[in-house]
């Protein structure tokens, strides 16, 4: 059982940065950005480029890839979403799906369809008191936890974080109170992009890098964000771990062919009983 919990934690750690990025963007921009999967793919391939083509050390490659992803994600706002800012959320959702397909195919055009991986040798596990883990998995969890703390610190202790929270609570009121919402939006895209870049690194470590790597994570990331309460970064962290645990346990006790459906079942059941998610605030309608 301890092993199952650990495995769930590893899966949750992979999903968490993407889920936080997704929920952060939703909180400020008020639409579910389905291009999150494509952003994760960009992150994985950007890091791969710095790792294998430029020959950088993997840590530097990760930072470079995260920066590139943040920049690309911000550019997608400038080119695609900013001109459509006044459009209803459903239109932006559809646009984000289209953007996802475009970005994925651009990557496919540049990098091809082959499977790839970072230049990190596979390691055998260490066994400790019945628990089996690898050094990669420890790094993976440590990076996800560090990202969570960094996100917490930004939201709680910085002026930008306070402005982000204010904008997420009430966009018009934040503007009236003198918050530069354009800057907040730009920061949201950049931070969301950086988190997607990190998710790309973590997924690339654990899985295989190919043009659909992010697409495969989109539903679990979405499920984690909804489970935690969409718009709530802390909820997304918890949601990611819960989705990870649910997936691991399902495959052990049921036919693994049904594992992919777990995310959907969680969303459906939760929305029935708690529409605002585990950590979300119920919307007050006046």
């Amino acid at each position, binding site marked *: 059982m301890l*092993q*199952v919990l650990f*495995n769930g934690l*590893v*899966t949750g750690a*992979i*999903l968490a940065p993407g889920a936080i990025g997704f929920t952060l963007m939703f909180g400020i921009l008020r639409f579910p950005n389905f291009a999150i999967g494509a952003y994760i793919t960009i992150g994985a391939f950007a890091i791969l480029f710095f790792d294998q083509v430029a020959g950088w050390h993997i840590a530097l490659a990760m930072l470079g890839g995260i920066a590139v992803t943040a920049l690309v994600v911000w550019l997608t706002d400038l080119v695609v979403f900013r001109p459509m800012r006044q459009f209803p959320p459903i239109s932006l959702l559809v646009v984000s799906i289209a953007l996802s397909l475009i970005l994925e195919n651009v990557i*496919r055009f540049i990098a091809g*369809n*082959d*499977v*790839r*991986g970072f230049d990190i*040798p*596979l*390691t*055998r*596990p260490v*066994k400790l008191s019945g628990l*089996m883990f*690898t050094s*990669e*998995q420890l790094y993976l969890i440590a990076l996800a936890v560090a990202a969570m703390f960094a996100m917490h610190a930004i939201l709680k202790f910085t002026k930008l974080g306070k402005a982000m929270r204010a904008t997420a609570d009430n966009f018009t009121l934040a503007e009236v109170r003198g918050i530069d919402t354009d800057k907040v939006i730009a920061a949201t895209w950049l931070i969301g992009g950086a988190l997607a870049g990190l998710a790309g690194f973590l*997924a690339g470590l*654990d*899985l*295989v890098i*190919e*043009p*659909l790597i992010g*697409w*495969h*994570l989109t539903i*679990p990331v979405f499920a984690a964000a909804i489970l935690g309460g969409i718009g709530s970064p802390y909820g997304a962290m918890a949601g990611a771990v819960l989705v*990870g645990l649910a*997936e*691991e*346990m*399902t*495959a*052990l006790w049921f*036919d*693994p*062919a049904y*594992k*992919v459906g777990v995310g959907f079942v969680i969303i459906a059941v939760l929305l029935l009983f708690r529409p605002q998610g585990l950590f979300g605030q119920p919307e007050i309608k006046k």
Partner: protein
Amino acid sequence: MKSAISRRRLLGTSAALTFTTALLPRLALGSAPISVGSLTPNTGGGGPFGPNITAAHKLVAEMANAKGGVLGREIALHQENSETNPETAIRAARKLVDVNKVIGVLGTWSSSVTLGIMPLCQEANVIQMCTSSSANIPLKDKKGLVFNFMVLSPIWGDALADLALRRGYKTYSVMALNNDFTKSMVDTFVDKVKAGGAKVSNDPFYYNGGQSSYRAEVSKLIADEPEAVFIPSYVTDFTSVYKELFRQGYEGKVITVSISTGSKFKKVVGAAADGILHGLPAPSLASAAYKDYLKFAGLKDTGAIQHPFGTAGHDQMSVLLLAMASAGTDDVAKVREHIHKISNGPGTAVTNVLDGLAALEAGEEINFSGASSDVDFKSPSGVLKSRDFVLWEIKDGKDVVIETIASAS
């Protein structure tokens, strides 16, 4: 009254016609092109192989067009990406059949795609040519319109189980990617190893591709510590699964299919790939057709198997065009008959479309042998009679041939 056709317009039109006929010297003026569909897995699980199949279809069509086409008509190739996804493939096939009016849909790779588009192809009397191994394909092909350039998956399961038994493994555990390709392979493998006195310790199960983790599946697979595991799969999911097997400390033998263990897989997992046993129906390296293919595709003969599915794409388009030329029509019923005729012979042995067209033009009967296999079908079905099956073991990061066996379908 002003003439409707001025002298200047007449001269201009004549010049344009002369120019057009000069560009297409041997294509009959006024004849509509013959439309052929190419539906290949350029992305998704078959992504590493689809582009080779697409390129091979295009290559053969261009070779034929450069020599004046077939039946004096240009071959118009309409290419679509199946994304290795039956839903996408059905939409693409619908377009090929209804809009492009193709005579055949060539190049499907995944069994689920080939089976998915079969009802609409059968309804529209359209020929299918594929490299899909599901044993359900000939059962569902009620009109004898499907020509499979790959042996069926029970043959794969049989060959791999035979190798495993000869290696002396006594306990096995089995899991597979959830699709039509793997199911009959798993059944055959399990039956054969059990008949050989070995034990399958788990209830074989299937996982879906494109998951965010394969940890639980791998834990379940190796829970009983089997001596060997059998994991038929595609390269995208197998790479993630194999990484997880290694990380969970499994040290037994891993047996799979070669489509999962290409050079990119080996690059991703590095030295950890050593020891994997795998097999695949493959081209005969010594055949004249395979050497022709390498030449046409601009590849060097490295002594290793290249383009296992691109060669089949070459053969598919060649067979279809030669059958039309042999039948003297693009009527599907006649073309179907002539596919059997030119593939199984008797006749002058030919290994490429140009030699075949030249022989047919000279009034000879032909027997086409392809780059992927001899391309002999079990008449009246489109099931391949035989194809070489090669078994490899990865040693020091390279595939080392254990043996090549001629497989019977």
